[in-house]
């Protein structure tokens, strides 16, 4: 998808991007959205932001994390605790949750010198250890019975825009990272750590930076999630299935691209909703089959498919 974007100038991308965002922002005002649709769209926004942030690590640096639920959960519970403890505006609580999640992500520093499968499996271990720790820290998380937040329907309504705003910020950040020197440095680390080090690109520093940023954004989405659903429970927030969700969204859309995780998250949320309603017993397996097909036939996922279509269109050919 970045290749597709490279054929378009930055101005054109902004021109394409703005109407979409504006339409989405106006939608709840002009159309009478049902609660179901409103829920689904907010959920999709949160998922997009999380998938994009996962992709900074999993796609740009090439370090596939199976433990991002740890930061999601930390962000969610810190924000929830702050909201329950003091009458601060919710956005401040989310930001605090995100900040703590970013700091927690730095705790993964020792694992960041691992590459490939070693890193991925270490993140499974860290994620599961975090889940156990927080499930049993009942004073903070409420244990298996979870935490309930005061239900605030006005806030719930406003969260639509907050979440849309987060999506705009995170996609803009993804796009800027991709185009900046930082993006190239991450790409160098992904391609060959040792060669990157020879050129003065410190894998340790950049991976810490990206992992902390990615963790902070995922923590922020966790905090907003807590506010939106008014109830959170550690086994769900820190669950392995949630970590898998981030991976699936990015892979379905196209790992390492900017538009990919956006598409992937939308498809993931819709598919999940549909499958849970119609075929709850096949839900996991179908994701598995999807994952297998994508890796075998189109490693760039939906973005790869779109790129193929785009190349067939006459306008994609540069004028001679």
């Amino acid at each position, binding site marked *: 998808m970045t290749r597709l974007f490279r054929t378009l100038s930055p101005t054109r991308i902004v021109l394409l991007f703005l109407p979409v965002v504006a339409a989405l922002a106006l939608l709840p005002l002009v159309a009478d959205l049902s609660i179901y649709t409103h829920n689904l769209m907010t959920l999709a926004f949160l998922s997009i932001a999380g998938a994009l942030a996962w992709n900074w690590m999993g796609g740009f640096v090439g370090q596939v994390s199976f433990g991002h639920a740890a930061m999601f959960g930390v962000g969610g519970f810190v924000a929830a605790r702050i909201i329950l403890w003091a009458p601060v505006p919710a956005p401040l609580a989310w930001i605090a949750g995100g900040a703590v999640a970013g700091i927690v992500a730095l705790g993964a520093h*020792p694992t960041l*010198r691992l590459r*490939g*499968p070693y890193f*991925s499996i270490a993140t*499974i271990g860290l994620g599961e250890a975090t889940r*156990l720790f927080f499930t049993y820290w009942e004073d903070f998380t409420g244990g298996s019975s979870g935490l309930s937040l005061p239900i605030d329907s006005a806030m719930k309504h406003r969260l639509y825009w907050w979440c849309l705003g987060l999506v705009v910020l995170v996609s803009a950040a993804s796009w800027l990272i991709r185009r900046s020197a930082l993006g190239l440095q991450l790409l160098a680390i992904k391609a060959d750590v040792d060669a990157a080090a020879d050129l003065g690109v410190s894998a340790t520093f950049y991976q810490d930076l990206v992992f902390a940023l990615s963790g902070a954004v995922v923590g922020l989405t966790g905090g907003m999630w807590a506010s939106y659903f008014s109830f959170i429970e550690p086994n769900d927030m820190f669950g392995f299935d949630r970590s898998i969700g981030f991976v699936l969204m990015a892979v379905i859309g196209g790992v390492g691209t900017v538009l990919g995780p956006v598409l992937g998250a939308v498809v993931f949320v819709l598919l999940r909703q549909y499958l849970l309603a119609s075929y709850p017993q096949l839900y*996991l397996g179908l994701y*598995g089959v999807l994952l297998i097909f994508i890796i*075998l036939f189109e490693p760039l996922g939906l973005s790869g498919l779109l790129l193929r279509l785009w190349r067939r269109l006459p306008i994609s050919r540069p004028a001679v």
Partner: protein
Amino acid sequence: MERFIDLTVSAVLLAGLYATMAYGLGIIYGVLRVVNLAHGGVIMAGAYLGWVLHGRLGLDPYLSSPIVVAAAYLLGMFMYKALVRHLPRGPAGGPASLLLLFGFWLVLRNVAYLLFTGNDQSITTAWSTRSVILLDAHISVSRLAVLAVGVVVPLALHLFLRRTYLGRAIRAVAQNPDSCTLVGVDVERIYSITFGIGTSLAGLAGLLSATIFAFNPGSGSGELLKSFVVVVLGGMGSVLGTGIAALILAVVEVFAILVLPSYLTAAVGFVMLVLVLVFRPGGLFGHRVLG
């Protein structure tokens, strides 16, 4: 003192199980450089197959073990031929192979949910509750049998890799697939056989653990992590190293009960995994591939 002996004995017995499952993961990584992320899924599948054979046909788990091993071997051949073979080799294939095998694990889990629901199951036989007294410690017969298998199977595998033509070919491919092609070893065939051996060990480990622990379609991630700890700690594919590493993990896990609150003992394996990866990524005994 009695408690100490009891704990030591149960650690030793557990180590046999850990060694079996770790060897299954280690041999695949050692030869193909692929981490079988579906390892936990195959362990779970082995447990269910043994459970079905015991429940439907009344087969004792030790009589059904050849069937489970053969079925898991075929499953592994299938996984290699249908999936893993199509991946790019080398570092580029790393994330792809993880995601691919992870997808397969999800499929296995779903199939198990469909067939057997999500309830916890375990294999209980007439001798599951029996125990023998050794050195003042009560030792359950099933754990003792698991240890016996956990010692015999890796040793048999060691002899197979050292003494037979096929075993030597597997070790040669682990060292250098290109030169193997030059001297006429069918590398693809060796890869699929190795994958089959790896999954058959996982299936066997699943069957063994089903006689001691409860399982459900979602189980397997703990087993995957433990296998990985042992593989990394013991060095890829070294039989003795794997055995020692399995013993270390089992001892640490079992004795953690003495110092840690019980709810945290489950996290010991995960924490150890991270510590090992960070401080001894080459294993306790340095890098060694199959031998």
